[in-house]
């Protein structure tokens, strides 16, 4: 028995584990869902009930608060009425006739004050506003005529309640309730004024009703007159701006009852504000919402916690119960998976609901049945397999997706991998792409057409290159659909090889016959060719002879052959001409007869025999008429075919023209030399003169200049009091011009000296020189930000003195023309120009216009104004002279504002 594995019958899909989904399809998920369906409405209902409780409580609180506010307003109204009544009584008593004595008045007032808590004092005021009598003696004589409430009563009002005001004597917040006292005719007799200290209202009203809440009274201005719980309030804290905006609504007569935001933190307050009728004041009551609602919340909290606990418990119980169902179901599922994998060992035992136990039994029976059927199937399969394995042909089966389902051992050998490795893979996994492509084309033919295909194909196998006779047959299911293919192929390599060997043997035989025939034909052809060639050679020989003769005759050089005895054996036309004799005369004669010096000619002839040849051997040939021709002879031995010396072959070159030219050149040379001597003498004289001149210039031109400068200075010093500013300026200009002229003379002398002085070339280190000059330039202007980049190891073979002049001028110029830039870079280096070393000095200063590049080196030419850059215009002329004396060249490149580069070469050392 083989281990259970994929088989032909197992083309169907494998059982797959379910993935989690929503709505839940598992038993546990469904149970939880059920539970939720029951519990959620219950919880929602509870929330709704609690909310209702809260709302009811809130309404109750609002009502209670409003009632409190109204009670305060009523209480205040009652208090006010009481005071007014008392005042009326006092007024009547005071205006009785006859008027009571003063001590009685005061006692009456003091006693009345006792009856009303919060009443500070009572006063009797005359019509001018002066306090005539008072319960408080210090109030007597106080003027209150300016108070608005007093004015109101004077102007006819029966009584008045003032807004909160600051007491005249004590200075603390109070308000007054005053009443005018009139006679029967309505004439005002006086005013009774009660001063109320709101601090003591707590004793007047039933403020305790407010409990933890608060109450307040506001006057017409909205100023806080009283507040409970009592606290010391400053005048500013009573200010209307400190009260809520809703207060103004109440002052306007509207009753407000609402829950208002109180603190920025989100606390809210239950507020009721109610107008106090007749006097335009308002009373308010309020308490924190949280505080008011606290009792309800205290009831709700434990109840909600209990509900949540009950819910959680219900869930736990539900899950525990569900296990009893889920456990057996899981076991059934695992068993089903096991059967799916082909594992039939054991059966499933289930303890649980009766339906599940029955299900488990049915399941076990089904498993056993499948197991039995598989066994039968596998045995049948095994028979096929043995059959398939036993044949030499390669056999495999593929499914419709191209996976190998079966591979026999012959096929495995052909692929070179064990069958287990191949099974389950595709052609592409096994073969290289190009081989796989051929196979897959065949496969798709079979799959698409449902027909058998047969081909012969070659393939590289682990046991070598092989040829297969391959056949592929479609596998169909009951519905006639192609669900795979069977391939059978036979190795026909050996048969093929046999055929090939036979074919090549025949081909070789044929080739050999063809070769032999061709060889015979070639031999025949060669024979014919040889005959023709011989004829051609003979013809060519004849032609060559004639050709050679004409060459000899055509030569302008006299040619002659001489035999071993010194007799001439042949001569050409040139030879006849130079001697003035005919060929017939010459042949057979002694060769030396025709030369001016026969013995020299013979010596040359012998030299040929000795050395084999002579070159350019000078002789003179005598013409019949007596004139001679100078010639150079070139002669050599010539031999017969056997190598025996036959004689000498001699060629003469007429050199009379050359001789004439030589004579002429010699004459010209002599002439030239003479002229050079003359010119040199002239130049020396001129130089001497120039030297004397410049010496004189140096000496004699400077003396007067010094005089001019010195005496100008003397004038400036000694006569400054007699010279006006313009005169002094003129003198200063004289001095400047003088100094400039002196500089010009110096530069001119330098220039001329450089031209005259002798040059001594030696090894000069330009790097060291340039560095020294750079240091000198920087010394007087250390503040300038200038960088010198000097190439290292620049050595030249030149005159040191002159090189210093060149570098001084070029670096000095660079220094000068960068002076107007804040930062400057001056570079000395080497570059290549036309293969020659060119030295250069580069700056990034003022530069110049290339159009004037050729004017730069002309003495006294200046491209910049004198006031811009100082100078005499001799420097670059000097540089040019020096460079030219060294056989070099100097040139410049630049642009206005872009700096300038001066190059120079020094010629061959």
């Amino acid at each position: 028995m083989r281990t259970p594995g994929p088989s032909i019958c197992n083309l169907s899909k494998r059982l797959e584990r379910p993935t989690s989904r929503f709505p839940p399809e598992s038993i546990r998920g469904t149970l939880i869902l059920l539970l939720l369906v029951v519990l959620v409405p219950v919880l929602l209902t509870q929330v709704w009930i609690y909310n209702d409780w809260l709302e009811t409580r809130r309404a109750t609180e609002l009502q209670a608060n409003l009632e409190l506010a109204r009670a305060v307003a009523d209480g205040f109204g009652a208090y006010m009425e009481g005071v007014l009544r008392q005042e009326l009584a006092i007024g009547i008593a005071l205006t009785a006739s006859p008027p009571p004595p003063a001590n009685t008045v005061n006692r009456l007032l003091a006693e009345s004050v006792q009856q009303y808590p919060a009443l500070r004092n009572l006063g009797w005021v005359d019509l001018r506003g002066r306090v005539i009598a008072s319960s408080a003696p210090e109030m007597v004589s106080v003027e209150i005529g300016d108070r608005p409430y007093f004015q109101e009563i004077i102007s006819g009002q029966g009584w008045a309640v003032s807004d909160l005001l600051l007491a005249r004597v004590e200075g603390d917040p109070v308000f007054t309730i005053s009443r005018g006292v009139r006679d029967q005719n309505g004439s005002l007799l006086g005013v009774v004024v009660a001063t109320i200290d709101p601090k003591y209202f707590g004793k007047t009203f039933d403020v305790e009703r407010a409990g933890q809440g608060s109450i307040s009274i506001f006057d017409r201005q909205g100023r806080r007159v009283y507040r409970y719980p009592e606290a010391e309030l400053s005048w500013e804290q009573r200010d209307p701006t400190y009260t809520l905006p809703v207060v103004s609504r109440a002052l306007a007569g509207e009753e407000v009852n609402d829950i208002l935001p109180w603190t920025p933190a989100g606390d809210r307050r239950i507020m009721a504000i109610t107008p106090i009728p007749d006097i335009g004041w308002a009373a308010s009551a309020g308490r924190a919402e949280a505080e008011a609602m606290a009792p309800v919340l205290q009831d709700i909290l434990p109840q909600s916690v209990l509900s949540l606990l009950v819910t959680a418990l219900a869930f736990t119980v539900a899950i525990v119960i569900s296990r009893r169902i889920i456990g057996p179901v899981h076991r059934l599922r695992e068993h089903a998976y096991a059967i799916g994998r082909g594992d039939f060992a054991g059966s499933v035992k289930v303890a649980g609901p009766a339906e599940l136990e029955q299900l488990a039994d049915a399941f076990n029976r089904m498993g056993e049945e499948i197991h039995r059927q598989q066994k039968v199937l596998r045995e049948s399969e095994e028979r096929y397999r043995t059959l398939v394995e036993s044949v030499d042909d390669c056999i495999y089966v593929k499914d419709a997706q191209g996976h190998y389902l079966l591979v026999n051992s012959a096929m495995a050998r052909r692929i070179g991998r064990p069958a287990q490795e191949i099974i389950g893979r595709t052609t592409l996994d096994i073969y290289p792409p190009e081989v796989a492509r051929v196979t897959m084309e065949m496969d798709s033919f079979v799959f698409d057409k449902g027909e058998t295909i047969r081909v012969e194909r070659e393939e590289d196998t682990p046991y070598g290159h092989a040829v297969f006779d391959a056949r592929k047959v479609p596998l169909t299911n009951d519905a006639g659909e192609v669900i795979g293919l069977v391939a059978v192929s036979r190795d026909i390599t050996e048969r093929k090889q046999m055929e090939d060997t036979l074919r090549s043997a025949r081909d070789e035989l044929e080739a050999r016959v063809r070769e032999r025939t061709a060889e015979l034909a070639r031999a025949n052809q060669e024979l014919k060719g040889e005959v023709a060639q011989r004829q051609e050679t003979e013809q060519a020989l004849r032609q060559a002879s004639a050709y050679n003769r004409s060459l000899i005759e055509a030569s302008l050089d006299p040619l002659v052959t001489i035999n071993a005895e010194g007799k001439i054996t042949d001569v050409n036309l040139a030879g006849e001409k130079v001697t003035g004799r005919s060929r017939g005369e010459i042949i057979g004669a002694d060769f030396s007869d025709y030369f001016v010096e026969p013995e020299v000619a013979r010596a040359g002839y012998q030299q040929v025999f000795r050395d084999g040849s002579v070159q350019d051997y000078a002789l003179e040939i005598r013409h019949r008429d007596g004139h001679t021709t100078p010639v150079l002879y070139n002669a050599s031995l010539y031999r017969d075919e056997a190598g025996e010396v036959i004689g000498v072959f001699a060629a003469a070159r007429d050199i009379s023209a050359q001789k004439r030219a030589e004579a002429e050149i010699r004459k010209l040379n002599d002439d030239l030399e003479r002229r050079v001597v003359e010119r040199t003498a002239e130049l020396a004289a001129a130089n001497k003169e120039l030297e004397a001149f410049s010496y004189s210039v140096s000496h004699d031109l400077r003396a007067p200049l010094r005089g001019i400068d010195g005496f100008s200075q003397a004038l400036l010093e000694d006569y400054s009091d007699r010279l006006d500013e313009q005169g002094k300026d003129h003198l200063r200009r004289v001095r400047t011009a003088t100094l400039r002229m002196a500089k010009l003379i110096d530069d001119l002398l330098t220039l001329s000296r450089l031209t005259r002085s002798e040059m001594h070339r030696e090894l000069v280190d330009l790097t060291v020189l340039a560095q020294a000059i750079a240091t000198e330039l920087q010394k007087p202007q250390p503040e300038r930000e200038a960088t010198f980049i000097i190439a290292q190891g620049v050595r030249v073979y030149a005159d040191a003195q002159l090189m210093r002049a060149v570098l001084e001028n070029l670096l000095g110029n660079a220094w000068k023309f960068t002076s107007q830039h804040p930062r400057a870079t001056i570079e000395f280096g080497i570059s290549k120009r036309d293969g020659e070393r060119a030295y250069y000095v580069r700056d990034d200063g003022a530069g110049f216009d290339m159009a004037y590049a050729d004017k730069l080196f002309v003495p006294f030419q200046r491209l910049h104004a004198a006031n811009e850059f100082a100078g005499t215009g001799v420097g670059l002329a000097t540089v040019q002279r020096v460079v030219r004396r060294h056989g070099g060249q100097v040139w410049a490149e630049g642009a206005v504002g872009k700096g300038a580069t001066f190059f120079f070469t020094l010629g061959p050392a």
Partner: protein
Amino acid sequence: MNEGIILLVEDNPDDVDLTLRAMRKNKILNEVVVTRDGTEALDYLFARGTYAGRNVNDLPAVVLLDLRRPKIDGLEVLQELRADPRTKLCPTVILTSSREEQDLIRGYSLGANSYIRKPVDFDQFTEAVRQIGLYWLLLNESLPRKKIG
């Protein structure tokens, strides 16, 4: 400053005046003898001609010698000065316009103590004279004068 005489050999009256002026400006108050040409200078140095009777041993503190003088050239004066044992040690400064190398070489080889080129710029000239005075009349230690007899 010491009391020595300065012998100025100079034919150009302008240069004479300027030199004297420069000395005045520098407070060089020594006596200055001006000779107009080489012959006169030699006459003074050797107490001949116009200067007969002068003590030859009373050498000037310094001789300022211009080259290219009429009659006898400055260099010739120097040559004669150095040839004579009495004057051969007399400090002699060549003060001239010339900057020619040959003059420099000849001047020094004939025994000049200094070679100073007269600048055209009078300010520089004054400075040169100041330094000559400072050096030859003040800093330089001259030979002790020989006693008469």
